[in-house]
């Protein structure tokens, strides 16, 4: 198996991975998640069996690090004294920017929305990334966009 030099992968995808992490994990989490992503990728790289789908492989790692960052932020969140009146109501997004709203989506929808709309990733590649069927990948894009559309219409 001839893997390209890791630097080639880094050069090609470094900016996109960083944008992905800023968008899905948030600006304050992005730097750490970025380093964690690339270090994990570098660690696993020589054991890769296939050199096709490197981008999907890389963004799957980035997605996992983004999810870790979300969890870490959740743990750091200050507990509030008052319980929300209606527990079933979705929490008010803290960040009302478009990416703030994206970050409120479920993890796979966050990834799907970013990779499809920003990177123009084909559905078969997105399916590989999400470890799902192509149909499920389409659904994640569709559901994520639908929810964002609805939220923006409510404003």
């Amino acid at each position: 198996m001839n893997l390209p030099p890791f630097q080639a992968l880094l050069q090609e995808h470094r900016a996109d991975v960083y944008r992905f992490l800023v968008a899905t994990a948030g600006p304050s989490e992005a730097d750490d998640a970025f380093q964690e992503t690339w270090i994990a990728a570098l660690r696993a790289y020589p054991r890769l069996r296939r050199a096709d789908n490197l981008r999907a492989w890389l963004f799957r790692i980035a997605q996992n690090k983004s999810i870790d960052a979300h969890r870490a932020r959740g743990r750091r969140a200050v507990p509030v004294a008052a319980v929300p009146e209606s527990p079933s109501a979705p929490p008010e997004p803290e960040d009302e920017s478009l990416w703030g709203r994206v970050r409120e989506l479920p993890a796979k929808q966050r990834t799907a929305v970013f990779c499809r709309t920003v990177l123009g990733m084909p559905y078969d590649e997105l399916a590989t990334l999400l470890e799902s069927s192509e149909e499920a990948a389409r659904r994640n894009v569709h559901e994520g966009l639908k929810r964002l559309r609805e939220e923006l219409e409510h404003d």
Partner: protein
Amino acid sequence: MTDIEQQLREAALDLPTESPPLAERADEEGLLDVAYTSVDSPLGPLVVAATPKGLVRVSYTEFRGEDEVLEDLARRVSPRVLEAPARLDAVRRELDEYFEGRRQDFDTAIDWSYLAGFTREVLRATARIGFGEVSTYAGVAEAAGSPRAVRAAGNALGANPMPVIVPCHRVLRTGGSLGGYTGGLERKEFLLRLEGMLL
């Protein structure tokens, strides 16, 4: 109102792309198998690369493109190849001093482990030829332990992965003609002139 997909694409243009560096952390984690950088020299730009054990490559970029060199390193040494100038600071300094005429011997460690058999013996013998000395293909073959393998010695020198530092330019044809040089004969002449071995 523009559609959400268009809005996302536009919002993506505002996302920062200036990401933090990685090489230092990779080195700390023991994952920087091959560090490389580019070094300017009077012979044109060089790609130099080192493992944690020492130097593995010096290559004339104008002779062989950087991409090709990195692909070769990925195949022969490890695919964990990263641009990481810090590991090569000492080599860079030594090369600068050498080309300025302020250094005769290189102190930098060499990682010989990716060279095998006779090639390795020939190149190790070549590394022992000092500044201001020259040898011959036959002489190097003998020093490598196989006096009759003159042609094989020539092939090993032609495949020298660390020119300048492993001074294959100091190996001439018996009788004094220059012989060949991977990287071009004009470079061999330049180096011999720098060392006072050619007028």
